[in-house]
């Protein structure tokens, strides 16, 4: 497999994952702001823009945090070169450049997804069409993932596809947690006001975790078990531990295929030490914010090592 193609596949799946997670984050934010006063709503949109690394860029263009306006900025604004439509476009461009490494099913899912979203996002986002667009982004990403799962050979290409997916997902989960980390500190769990459960609910929704969490915890809400669930539960597909166990597996497949390990395998082991065997108490002791910072940095180092080891660029 060509290094350039491995690179293209890896990023195609990163972009698809990022687009989907961004849509999820906006949907949760939108829901939250509907039930809150203006101050809380503004705060929520600010926190979403911070999570996405777009706060400065947004504030350079706008003075207020009207929901549809924020969503328009994140989804399609020309003033935001990293908008969701651009992610979908990048995913499709990568798919096109790696067309011969993908099955027709995957290519068509990505291509049709791009066509659908291009049409949906051709006009400014309004409150009335926001949910349709957000749902469509998640659906199209899901279709591409499903086609990947159902039609691709389990070979090198697949390993890079999955690595891209889980590396991006772990990054997104960590960023969402980091922006809200203060909500999850144990001291707050004693407050237990309605406002706080709403905030927790919002964190869970941002990761589509609310149902799974409630099902496992029979409705009990507390910061400790939410953090435990989102970071350490290996049954939940967006938890850090889940993403890393899949990446470990994908990297092992690559090592086996190539008959050798690289620096990324070392980086993976280093990341494992930070994550496995830890309890949520250990993490709180270290400091949640500190833990997430280190995690994100380690995740980035891992991505760099993968690119280096597998000759993504000349």
């Amino acid at each position: 497999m060509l290094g350039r193609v491995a690179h293209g596949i890896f990023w195609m799946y990163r972009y698809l994952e990022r687009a989907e997670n961004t849509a999820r984050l906006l949907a949760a934010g939108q829901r939250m702001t509907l039930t809150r006063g203006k101050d809380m709503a503004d705060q929520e949109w600010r926190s979403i823009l911070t999570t996405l690394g777009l706060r400065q860029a947004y504030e350079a263009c706008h003075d207020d945090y009207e929901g549809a306006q924020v969503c328009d900025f994140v989804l399609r604004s020309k003033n935001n070169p990293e908008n969701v439509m651009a992610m979908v476009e990048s995913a499709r461009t990568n798919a096109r450049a790696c067309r011969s490494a993908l099955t027709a099913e995957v290519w068509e899912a990505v291509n049709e997804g791009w066509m659908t979203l291009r049409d949906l996002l051709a006009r400014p986002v309004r409150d009335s069409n926001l949910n349709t667009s957000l749902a469509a982004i998640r659906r199209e990403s899901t279709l591409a993932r499903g086609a990947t799962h159902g039609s691709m050979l389990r070979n090198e290409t697949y390993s890079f596809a999955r690595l891209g997916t889980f590396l991006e997902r772990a990054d997104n989960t960590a960023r969402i947690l980091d922006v809200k980390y203060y909500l999850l500190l144990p001291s707050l769990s004693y407050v237990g006001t309605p406002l706080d459960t709403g905030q927790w609910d919002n964190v869970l929704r941002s990761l589509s975790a609310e149902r799974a969490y409630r099902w496992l915890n029979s409705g009990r809400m507390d910061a400790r078990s939410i953090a435990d669930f989102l970071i350490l539960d290996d049954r939940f597909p967006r938890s850090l531990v889940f993403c890393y166990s899949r990446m470990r597996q994908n990297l092992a497949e690559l090592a086996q295929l190539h008959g050798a390990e690289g620096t990324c395998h070392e980086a993976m082991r280093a990341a494992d030490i930070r994550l496995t065997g830890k309890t949520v108490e250990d993490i709180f002791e270290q400091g949640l914010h500190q833990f997430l910072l280190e995690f994100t940095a380690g995740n980035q180092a891992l991505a760099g090592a993968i690119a280096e080891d597998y000759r993504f660029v000349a």
Partner: protein
Amino acid sequence: MTASEPAKFDEMHMPDGTVREAYRGYNQWLEGQDEGWMRRKAFEAESFFRKTGITFNVYGEDDAEERLIPFDMVPRVITAGEWRRLSRGIEQRVRALNAFMHDLYHRQEIIRSGRLPERLFRDNDAWLPQMVGFTPPGGVYTHIVGIDLVRTGPDEFMVLEDNARTPSGVSYMLENRETMMSMFPELFSKVKVREVSDYPRRLAKSLAACAPESAGSKPRIAVLTPGIYNSAYYEHAFLADQMGAELVEGSDLRVLDGKLQMRTTVGFRPVDVLYRRVDDDFLDPLTFNPDSMLGVPGIMDVYRAGNVTIANAPGTGVADDKAIYSFMPEIVEFYTGEKALLPNVETYRCADPDSLKYVLDNLEELVVKEVHGSGGYGMLIGPTSSKKEIRQFRQKLEARPENYIAQPTLALSTCPVFTKKGLAPRHVDLRPFVLCSPQGVDITPGGLTRVALKKGSLVVNSSQGGGTKDTWVLDD
């Protein structure tokens, strides 16, 4: 004949309206179909092409970065007997082309014998001095050839153009058939049409047979594309995918240890056969255009050392020259010892003073083409051009007559297309695809039929609003 007159020969209907032999099976089926249903099908075809991404890029158009080549649902049908005759003529011509190329880069017997003026290739940018005295692996120059044919009567097929450099369009031959089979499956059980779908397998086999000796029993094939912004990128990706070959860009390749190698996830690995869809000029910045980012520095050294096969061979573009084309009947006879089975279209070489005078006197009646032009650009179609256009073209022609050839405006055959008002005749041509290797000449029974969708138009090029049709060669 002018462009607005009705054509003399229609592929489907006799002048009295009865259906020709070739179309009997199709017509029988068509008569049983509901018109509204057919209209819906036409719409379906377009969305099918959009989804699969069979698009081409048009240079210089901002808003339409990726466009569809319109597809028409009425097939172009060729009988088994017609195809047999065509195949013989095509094979003869392609063998002659390869022999000609070898001669041009070696002893140049055809020039010594006085059959071809030397200036024709000396003035030709496509002729490469780097190829002199070198024989490509397997002795093959044009591994993949597209011969453009036009028809003016029941037995009158003529060659309009040879595409020995990099013929494109084969993906349309394949996808048009897939589209037809998925839209009208029952049609193919009623009419026995010969398969085209194994073209990629044949191509891989033919290319492998041209591999250098060092390649071993399983040569590694790669398709070199200029990248996703190239107008034919879809086809490059499609062929690589269908052949199971790597699709590479210049930046993936490097010359290492005297071999062409590609950067894989486990390091550099050799390539034995490079099916390149990059022009000669961009192939090697050390030998040709030094600014090229699309090629591989040093690849020509590897090639000349016999360590890689480049398909088609550099320097084959010389045969696409329309002045050389005008000598093809002589070329065929010189190398095969037989009369050309497929005639040329009558061609006036403007370099010749008598011909030039005739051409200048009859510009309104003629089609004038640049000898190095392609894609329907830079040509004059006298009968459909305004007085002003003709006047401007006359100046260009007088300034550089040797840069032009002229041909009579042909009564190209028509084939019905599906329009909102039912079937209507439109002009068509035909490009069969031919593969050459030391094992022989292999012609896939079918090809690309291009159709001028505008009523009366004779320009079938996709860059100028032409469409395509599925091309059927009937089984005996």
